[in-house]
């Protein structure tokens, strides 16, 4: 046991907040409301779900942990700059109370990453054509490689994390993405130092995400990325999170990765002209996951696009199983029949461009 006192404290906290009492009464231990069912939890925004189990003070502690250093015990020089804020100032270490609240939050939210859970994978618009075509080109221009795009990989999150948010709010809520350049797929630079603004790309063509239903193996492989201090604490104090997290430290002072297992506030300026010039979208509590092994797309998965101004989404395509004339069964994307003519032209053009890139690379 690395830290028996911390373990005892965490155990005490867990026992005090997850008592049999809660299940017996069917009431939330923190606010007394009816306990949500497993199905209801899939559609509850994390902030609402957490109010069932965490006190207001604990939620405040979680929020206050942003911009703290969760890797003070990392000694390798490769991660030294990750301990700094974008302006170069050092980040304060997490307090024990923040670590305990974060641990509690993750143990609650992680219960819902299970077989059948719906996740979203937000993808840059530059990748949409390759996904719909089924293949794309990676590697350098000198040695291009044609690859299939039939997996979900990297950062993912439950659908509830961004449910009802419009494209701009989603980019802000998820801290999309590490784009320090003048223009990006999700964010562009802004006149205000250390602030980004919603990219012209998203404003023009919307924000796309793959809606995927998790397999049992996929849910196991979707783990919580935590920087060392927090990961060590979780591993030593929280049996329910055994094998549910892995160590992932922050590299680079500009990288919005928090190391806290949740998204960072990237200081994304709002699009609303009524707001102050430096007003930013609020941070939404959530849990990030990383596919430690890519998980294959499954028939029934969907590609959605959300725009600005409302959380309304447009279904772009479905991943369907088809049988070819020779009897071969395979899965591929099929554009929605409900697309407008303009949208259909747009996505067919993206597919054609992807096909041309693949052909040029010898695929």
């Amino acid at each position, binding site marked *: 046991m690395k830290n028996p006192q911390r373990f005892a404290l965490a155990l005490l906290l867990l026992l005090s907040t997850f008592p049999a009492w809660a299940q017996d009464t069917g009431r939330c231990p923190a606010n007394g409301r009816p306990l949500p069912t497993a199905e209801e939890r899939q559609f509850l925004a994390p902030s609402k779900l957490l109010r069932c189990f965490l006190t207001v003070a604990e939620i405040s502690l979680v929020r206050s942990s942003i911009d703290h250093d969760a890797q003070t015990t*990392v000694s*390798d020089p*490769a991660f030294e700059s990750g301990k700094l804020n974008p302006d170069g100032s050092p980040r304060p270490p997490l307090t024990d109370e923040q670590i305990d609240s974060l641990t509690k939050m993750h143990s609650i939210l992680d219960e819902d990453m299970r077989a059948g859970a719906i996740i979203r994978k937000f993808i840059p618009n530059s990748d949409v054509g390759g996904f719909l075509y089924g293949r794309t080109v990676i590697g350098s221009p000198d040695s291009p490689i044609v690859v299939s795009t039939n997996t979900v990989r990297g*950062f993912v999150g439950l659908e509830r994390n961004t449910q009802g948010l419009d494209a701009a709010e989603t980019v802000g809520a998820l801290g999309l993405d590490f784009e320090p350049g003048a223009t990006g797929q999700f964010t562009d630079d802004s006149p205000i130092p250390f602030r980004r603004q919603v990219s012209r790309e998203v404003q023009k063509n919307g924000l796309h995400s793959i809606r995927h239903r998790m397999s049992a193996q996929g849910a196991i492989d979707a783990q919580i990325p935590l920087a060392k201090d927090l990961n060590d604490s979780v591993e030593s104090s929280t049996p329910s999170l055994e094998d549910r997290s892995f160590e992932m430290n922050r*590299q680079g002072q500009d990288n919005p990765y928090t190391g806290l297992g949740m998204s960072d506030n990237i200081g994304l300026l709002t699009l609303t002209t009524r707001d102050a010039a430096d007003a930013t979208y609020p941070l939404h509590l959530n849990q990030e996951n990383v596919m430690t092994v890519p998980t294959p797309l499954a028939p029934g998965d969907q590609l959605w696009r959300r725009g600005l101004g409302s959380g309304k989404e447009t279904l772009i395509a479905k991943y369907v199983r088809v049988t070819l004339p020779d009897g071969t069964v395979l899965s591929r994307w099929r554009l929605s029949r409900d697309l407008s003519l303009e949208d259909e032209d747009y996505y067919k053009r993206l597919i054609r461009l992807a096909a041309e890139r693949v052909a040029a690379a010898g695929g």
Partner: protein
Amino acid sequence: MPLTRRDTPNGPVWVRPPFRPEDYSAPATALRLFERWRGDIESSEGILAMRDGPFGNYVEVGREIRDGKTWIVLLEASREFAVEVEAVSMGFGEVLTLPPHQAYELARARDPFRSHPVILGGSE
């Protein structure tokens, strides 16, 4: 073996405990994770460079060509075990663990570059 930080009158130091083979041995789970990426669409280098992949805590500390194959030597930055992976165009090729004493030497080679001095075995 994770180093521990100690505050001294002269400032913080990292403490490296005396060598024990078990502290520098690669766990089987680490090897299995590499193996599960075999045949992936990305090259070995591409996977290791992923910002949102599971191998971000591995630091490349060596590279050599043997028998026409390229091998990348990786040190896990916190637990300080070492593996050698065969670089291929899709996923990873063979994955080998390096002996603990070799992992220890690789870790020690990074000590001069750490943010604080490293002292051995708890001595000052």
